[in-house]
């Protein structure tokens, strides 16, 4: 939507709750997902990416260009995931 346009409620959408079931399969185990790097466009399984964990969080990097794919921070009572470097995730379903 053009930012100059005024937003008006429509009938085409429902709220995000309806996504819950569809996202379940992404939660189970993401390491087998095929991941496209937003930096260089290379695709491959997350399991083949480079994980750095001698750090305040776990940092997963693209094996091709070493850009950060995602970062997972464990604060005990809160887990924070940022996925700035992921353009696309593909899960193969039976």
């Amino acid at each position, binding site marked *: 939507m053009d930012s100059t346009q005024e937003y008006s409620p429509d009938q085409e959408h429902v709220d995000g709750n309806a996504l819950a079931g569809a996202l379940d399969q992404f939660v189970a185990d993401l390491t087998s997902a095929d991941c496209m790097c937003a930096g260089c466009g290379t695709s491959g399984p997350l399991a083949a990416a*480079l994980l*750095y964990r*001698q*750090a*305040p*969080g776990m*940092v997963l*990097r693209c094996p091709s260009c*070493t*850009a*950060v794919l995602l*970062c997972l*921070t464990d*604060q005990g009572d*809160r887990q*924070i995931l*940022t996925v700035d470097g992921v353009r696309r995730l593909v899960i193969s379903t039976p």
Partner: protein
Amino acid sequence: MATPTSGFTGRRQNRGANLPPGQYLTDSFPVMSAGPTPHVLLRDWSFQIAAGPGRTHRWSWEELQALPQEDVTTDIHCVTHWSKFGTTWRGVTLDTLFEDVESDAEYTMVHSYGGYTTNVPLDDLLDGKAWLVHEFDGEPLPSAHGGPARLLVPHLYFWKSAKWVSGIRMMDQDLPGFWETNGYNMYGDPWREERYW
């Protein structure tokens, strides 16, 4: 009546007043790294302060070495709970580097070779509180610990002391760097245990 003993000693001993809350003391120097170690040749190395359009100050390695050097002995505190007392460094105080920098900006973003960033208020880089260091323990700073040169801001958690530092960009507002985006505190005072948001 039993005589009190000094209790357990070792890695987690508490040396009292010098140890911030939630920290343990270590004699080692753990290597923390969120990515591959950049290897920058000294002839290619430079450090710059970007104060605005057309107001970039840049130093080569030789120019950095020609500036007045200071020896610094300080305690350091990592947000992953280890602290190390009495570390010794050599480098240039940020006061020297900012001497001719004119800017009204109150915040900075520190940039590193390899893409790391961290935000630090300008006041925390001045008045003898921060250095650009290139020696540790009397030797050239190893690349694993941020060589050729790293920032040293020891009054804040050590993620603010960016390894492989390449420059500082002045900012009018306080924006988050890498770890600050990923859940860590915008300021990071170890004495107030400012680890997270």
